[in-house]
């Protein structure tokens, strides 16, 4: 008499290479990062992997460091709590810290990791829009070696990423943000700690009332975070008046493709997201003294 699930293999490799070897040896095996999402899905009978490759024993995935070019690299196994308190993050990079602070709650932030979160990619999660707004780069290792890909390209579709078979996320790189820029994350959720009904992540820098850097991403309102670099480019170099703010908010709204779900209707998301964008942008500009 054997318990269902008793035959599942469990591995705790010490290096990324070992982990990759284990993944390629069994295509039913999956990475176990913090477990916050994976184990919840196993408990709910949603997935039944044939093997679990725990990444918790791989030290290089647990570090965060500043790179020579000023970028900050966050290892895939850094917990949300660590990123929420990350002192390496400066200026606009703090948009990622703000997002981490709003993920779930203390015990879950103690378990969940940035690598696990983005690899699973719930479109209503907090990291994706923040990483897209921060122009983050995702580091990936796989059977064919290492590669790096922009966060904006990493998120492909609902719950689908650019990760290929046997590949894993090893870290996230946040390029240095302009001196004096601000990074803010606004989240609307039914209750504290819920996934976002809609969210806005932005990085803004202004030099004497002129926008010198701008990146705005809307989360939870489309298969992937929505950004409008074309409109951002139009605004950069100009003042941030209401017309510009409206222009960007409306342009973002055009690209939304939200779903009806238990959190809200698609129609409400279309309605509220541009309102949140305008609000977040004006607030950020105010803190920079960029609006009279």
């Amino acid at each position, binding site marked *: 008499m*054997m*318990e269902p*699930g*008793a035959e*599942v*293999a*469990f591995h*705790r490799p010490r290096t990324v290479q070992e982990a990759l070897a284990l993944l390629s040896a069994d295509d039913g095996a999956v990475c*176990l990062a913090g*477990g*916050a999402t994976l*184990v*919840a899905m*196993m*408990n*709910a009978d949603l997935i039944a992997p044939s*093997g*679990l490759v*725990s990444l*918790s024993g791989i030290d290089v995935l647990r570090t965060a460091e500043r790179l020579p070019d000023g970028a900050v690299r966050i290892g895939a196994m850094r917990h949300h*709590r660590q990123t929420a308190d990350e002192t390496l993050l400066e200026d606009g990079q703090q948009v990622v810290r703000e997002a981490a602070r709003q993920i*779930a*709650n*203390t*015990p*879950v932030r*103690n*378990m969940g990791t940035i690598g696990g979160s983005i690899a699973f990619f719930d479109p209503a999660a907090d990291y994706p829009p923040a990483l897209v707004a921060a122009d983050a780069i995702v580091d990936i290792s796989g059977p064919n070696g290492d590669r790096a890909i922009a966060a904006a390209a990493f998120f492909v579709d609902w719950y689908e990423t650019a990760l290929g078979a046997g590949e894993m996320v090893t870290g996230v790189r946040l390029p240095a943000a302009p001196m004096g820029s601000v990074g803010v994350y606004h989240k609307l959720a039914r209750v*504290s*700690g819920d996934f976002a009904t809609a969210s806005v992540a932005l990085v803004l820098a202004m030099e004497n009332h002129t926008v010198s850097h701008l990146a705005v991403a809307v989360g939870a309102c489309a298969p992937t975070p929505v950004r409008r670099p074309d409109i951002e480019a139009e605004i950069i170099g100009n003042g941030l008046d209401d017309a510009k703010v409206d222009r960007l908010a409306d342009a973002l709204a055009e690209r939304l493709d939200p779903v009806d779900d238990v959190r809200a209707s698609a129609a409400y998301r279309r309605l509220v997201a541009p309102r949140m964008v305008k609000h977040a942008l004006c607030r950020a500009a105010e803190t920079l003294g960029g609006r009279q």
Partner: protein
Amino acid sequence: MTGHPLTLKVNGQERALSVSATRTLLETLREDLALTGAKRGCNQGVCGACTVLVDGQPVRGCLSLTANCDGAEVTTVEGLADGNVLSTVQQAMADTGAVQCGFCTSGMLISAFAFLRDNSAPTVDDIQHALSGNLCRCSGYRKIVDSILLAAKRVA
């Protein structure tokens, strides 16, 4: 519970176990070690009734795989009191009427214990943030906040 051999230090006691890869820490504590203080409320990491300390940090017992905790120190509600002497936070909950049905209490105490260890003079807002991952359907939360304020006062 066949398969992966490992050791845990549970409430100060070394325990050698062998578990299947999918066994959660909550199942191990409740079913293999007969420590039923941590509860299964949702088995999804939302309600917080299964919260335990792993290496000093509050985590979800229902989302932690035992096989992944090899060598870890685990503290459950059963490990908070010193013999018959309740810990400060336990005593404070008794004194403020913060416990009604008690089903969320084990997880609530674990979160509160870890929070008070790291925060000596908390504000109401700090407490609400730190405990927002532990749901209570009975109390309306106020008396739980009161109990943690009282505990902090007594420690100070």
